[in-house]
């Protein structure tokens, strides 16, 4: 037996939140993208309920434009940990005529995910969806609650949010409403990476430096892929890059990097002069891009 438990304040806060979800809701689900934040969530959930299994399933809203490395990683993790995974596809929403594929130079399926997500929430009657969003990512997210209530249409009423006092989380909702839960709200990008390093967590290979076919647009490094619209003038070259976030191929830009290990990644982030969402093409659409998407039910 070890002596005294040394605590990590952020980890303990997240575990507390996970336990509140399990206690206050009937059908929670953990939204899993295969990215570093959702990998961190899975680890925290394991710790919250040990020696019992995580008492809710994982769900991935698959745009069909994910990096193949991420999907392979997702399936491996779920199998190794014996977790239940639900996958719902944006392609199905497109085929059903519920959403229309964007076209043109900046087309992306990122926004379309919202419809697939809301349909899945309704299909399974989920009352709490746990996500890995963090307040330091973006200024509209800085206003987000830990328990964030959404109406029947999945909408976020940003001007009328419930106050959250001390540790007390109010998960009471009306029929049809659901709650988005953000256990790592107070973590920064560096906190997540440090945690992954300390816990020795496995992450998809695209987070590490690798050779990739890319092209440059608007000063950002885009991945050359069948899912990404590209002009003929835009020249493809091979470059050593890695990704700081794992979104869709069509909305996630790469950064130049030689960081091949977690330790090197952490060092790189510590010295980095651009923020993680600086490489998110979807946020560059306008100053209020995230707030607008959130009002419509985006995560």
């Amino acid at each position, binding site marked *: 037996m070890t002596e005294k438990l040394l605590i990590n304040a952020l980890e303990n806060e997240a575990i507390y939140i996970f336990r509140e979800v399990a206690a206050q809701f009937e059908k929670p689900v953990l939204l899993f993208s295969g990215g570093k934040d959702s990998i961190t969530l899975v680890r925290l959930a394991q710790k919250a309920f040990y020696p019992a299994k995580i008492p809710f399933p994982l769900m991935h809203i698959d745009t069909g434009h994910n990096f193949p490395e991420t999907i392979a990683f997702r399936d491996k993790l779920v199998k190794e940990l014996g977790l239940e995974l639900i996958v719902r596809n944006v392609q199905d929403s497109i085929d059903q005529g519920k959403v229309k594929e964007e076209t043109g130079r900046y087309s992306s399926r990122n926004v379309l995910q919202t419809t697939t997500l809301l349909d899945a929430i309704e299909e399974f009657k989920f009352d709490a969806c746990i996500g890995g969003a963090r307040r330091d990512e973006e*200024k509209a997210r800085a206003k987000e609650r830990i328990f964030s209530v959404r109406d029947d249409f999945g909408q976020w009423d940003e001007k009328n949010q*419930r106050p959250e006092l001390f540790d007390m989380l109010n998960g009471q909702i009306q029929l049809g409403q659901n709650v988005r839960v953000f256990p790592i709200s107070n973590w920064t990008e560096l906190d997540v990476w440090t945690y992954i390093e300390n816990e020795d967590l496995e992450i998809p290979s695209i987070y590490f430096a690798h050779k990739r076919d890319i092209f440059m647009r608007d000063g950002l490094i885009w991945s050359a892929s069948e899912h990404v619209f590209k002009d003929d003038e835009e020249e493809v070259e091979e470059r050593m890059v890695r990704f700081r976030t794992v979104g869709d191929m069509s909305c996630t830009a790469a950064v130049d990097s030689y960081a091949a290990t977690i330790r090197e990644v952490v060092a790189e982030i510590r010295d980095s002069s651009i923020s993680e969402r600086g490489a998110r093409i979807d946020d560059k659409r306008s100053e209020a891009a995230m707030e607008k998407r959130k009002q419509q039910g985006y995560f």
Partner: protein
Amino acid sequence: MEVLKIATAGSVDDGKSTLIGRLLYDTKSLTDDKLEAIEKSSKQKGYDYLDFSLATDGLVAEREQGITIDVAHIYFSTKTRSYIIADTPGHVEYTRNMVTGASTSQVAIILIDARHGVIEQTYRHFFINNLLRIKDVIVAVNKMDLVDFSEERYNEVKADFEKLVEKSDYEDQHITYIPVSALKGDNVVENSTAMPWFSGQTLLEHLEKLDTVNIYNRGKMRFPVQYVIRPKTQEFHDFRGYAGKVYGGDINVGDEVVVLPSETRTKVKEIYFNDKKYQSAARRSSISITLENNVNVSRGDMIVKANELPRIEKAFTATVSWMDARALAPGAKYTLQHGVNKVIAKVSAINHKIHPDFSGVENEVTSLNMNDIASVSFQLNKPIFFDAFKEHRTNGSFILIDPQTNNTAGVGFIE
């Protein structure tokens, strides 16, 4: 890494955003793309300085009106520790936001414009920090550049604030005065050359050297049970772990404890964090424990040390900060959430309204509106296990949930 939460309150006019921006800028916490966005927006608005409020006011309505409406969270870190600023608006109609921001903070910064000195808003900010029992308060006398960095003016403002402190009954509160110029950067992160007469620490130095062990209000050990872990696997067939967060003091294997409300006595058998067992766990750790005897424990129960029983009562009086558009009236019923425990509470009386500026109370009040603070008496359908807020910040507070809207309508601090 240790995390320190800081509450700030104020309006753009106090230079609050400039102060926060200065902290971020001088600690190199603003990345190039964020700085670029601020430069771009500032230029668009025709400002000849960087408007840091654009980094903190995240909602469209806030940017349109140039005000902070909600609580924003701002993150920065140094080699020593991580900081979270809970930034709230300072006007009276946002009292509820200030209370919310202060509830999770251990430190507060009260900003005073050196030209205007202690004003009505200063009274309110200090009152709320007192009400919420914030242990470390920094009084930043800002805009010193506009009063020629005058030591005399600083001393006048300080003396006025000290008069305010005399009205406080919170003796353990630690108050530090710092003359700053957020715009020019004096005494925020870097020492001021313009104020050689000031020998104290800069704002950041003060934060960096704060003793985080003693910054939290201690109290008796309280372990509210959040969740019962029953794996029902072969290996852990009879395992019953009681999951929760430790408040107030340490919990140790072998401690004689009492489970409330059943008042069953037993001992702590094991303390788990994840798959490891520990001899002892400190306050704020999210652990699970097993008990020697097979007792019936469920969510909402509380485990305490045998010689440290809390008050177990069905009626009490509390200071309530009201947060809902629907008024609170005598006779109304609410769901009262005390930690993770829920009971039904009936308002038996509104005793008096408290002016949030130390100017006294108002009797014969018939209802409470949003942002009001008042002394309210409650009756519960069953007893809860609590301490006075002054003795235990977590076990002495509760929220009131409107059973019709499910909104968090108010917060209470038990007297």
